[in-house]
């Protein structure tokens, strides 16, 4: 069964971080079991992991679930479709989630985004798959509109 990725997990780094968190969680669960304190102090989860376990209805407290999840995450990492997207500034989480939502809905649910910063873009974004680069920047838009701009300048 494939893992469903929540919108809060948008990048490859998010999956790697969740992996580390699950691993840490597993260690803590073991420690709590040894100390008999599991019910007294619940381990706090990150938003990504919380959404992941809720979306996939996973109980991390069950035995071997953490290890299974880590393996599934490793498998997912191998299966994901990785897109790179560059912006002029660091996008907010909200923007990231909206973008990943669009990609997963319109293109493929396994898509992850690597976010980069490229100040020369100024306005817009540049999307790079492993086959093509799509320039959605203002510069490209102006270059595409050069003939119209020249016509406008000449008053034609």
């Amino acid at each position: 069964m494939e893992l469903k990725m929540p919108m809060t997990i948008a990048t490859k780094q998010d999956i790697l971080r969740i992996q580390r968190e699950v691993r840490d969680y597993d260690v803590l669960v073991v420690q709590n079991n040894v100390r008999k304190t599991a019910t007294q102090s619940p381990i706090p989860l990150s938003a990504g992991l919380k959404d992941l376990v809720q979306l996939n209805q996973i109980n991390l407290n069950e035995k071997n679930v953490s290890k299974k999840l880590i393996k599934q995450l490793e498998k997912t990492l191998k299966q994901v479709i990785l897109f790179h997207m560059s912006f002029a500034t660091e996008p907010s989480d909200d923007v990231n989630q909206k973008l990943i939502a669009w990609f997963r809905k319109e293109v493929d649910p396994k898509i992850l985004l690597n976010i980069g910063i490229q100040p020369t873009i100024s306005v817009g974004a540049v999307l790079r798959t492993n086959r093509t680069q799509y320039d959605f920047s203002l510069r490209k838009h102006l270059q595409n509109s050069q003939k119209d701009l020249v016509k406008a300048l000449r008053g034609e």
Partner: protein
Amino acid sequence: MNSYLVAFGIGISAAILSILLYLLWPRPKKNKATSASPDIDLAAIAEKKSMEVFNDSFREELRNRGRLHFEKVISENALFLQQDLRLTTSELNTFMKDEIQKVLKDEFSKYEASITSARDIALESIKKTQEVIDQQRTQLEQQMNDQAAEEKQRLIDRFEKNMADILNHYILDAIGGEIDLTDQLEYIFQSLEENKKAILEDVKNGA
């Protein structure tokens, strides 16, 4: 003409003076012993008589008369000579004046012609120079206009060629970091929608 008259007068006077001197000049006495013949005696007698007629006082009288006549002739001739000289001088002055005027007139005419010619040549030269300058000025003007038009066109072409970058640069300067990515999402999604088919194709082909 006057000079001929003066010379003639002087010649006449010289001839008269020569005759008088010949007549009045004393002759040497001949020796009686050597004249033995009657002819010679006659001659001697004649000479004696003539000597009696032409005695010293008579000779002195003739000499005085000759001197007076000579002085009169000389005085008259000097007067004529003076008049002729004055007339000649006057004519000579007139002649010289006329000649000098003629020569000066000719020289001035030549000089004027030369000046006129030089002026014409100078004017012609100035005119040609002016024409050359005008021609060069026109060429230079045309050349500068062409270069200006060429430069203008080159600037326009470069501006049009790099217009996207220039506008992008100015927009970037103008907005700086003012535009939030959230405001750009609509444009980004619109671009994604426009390229959705190509992106799907990429994924299908192993993105």
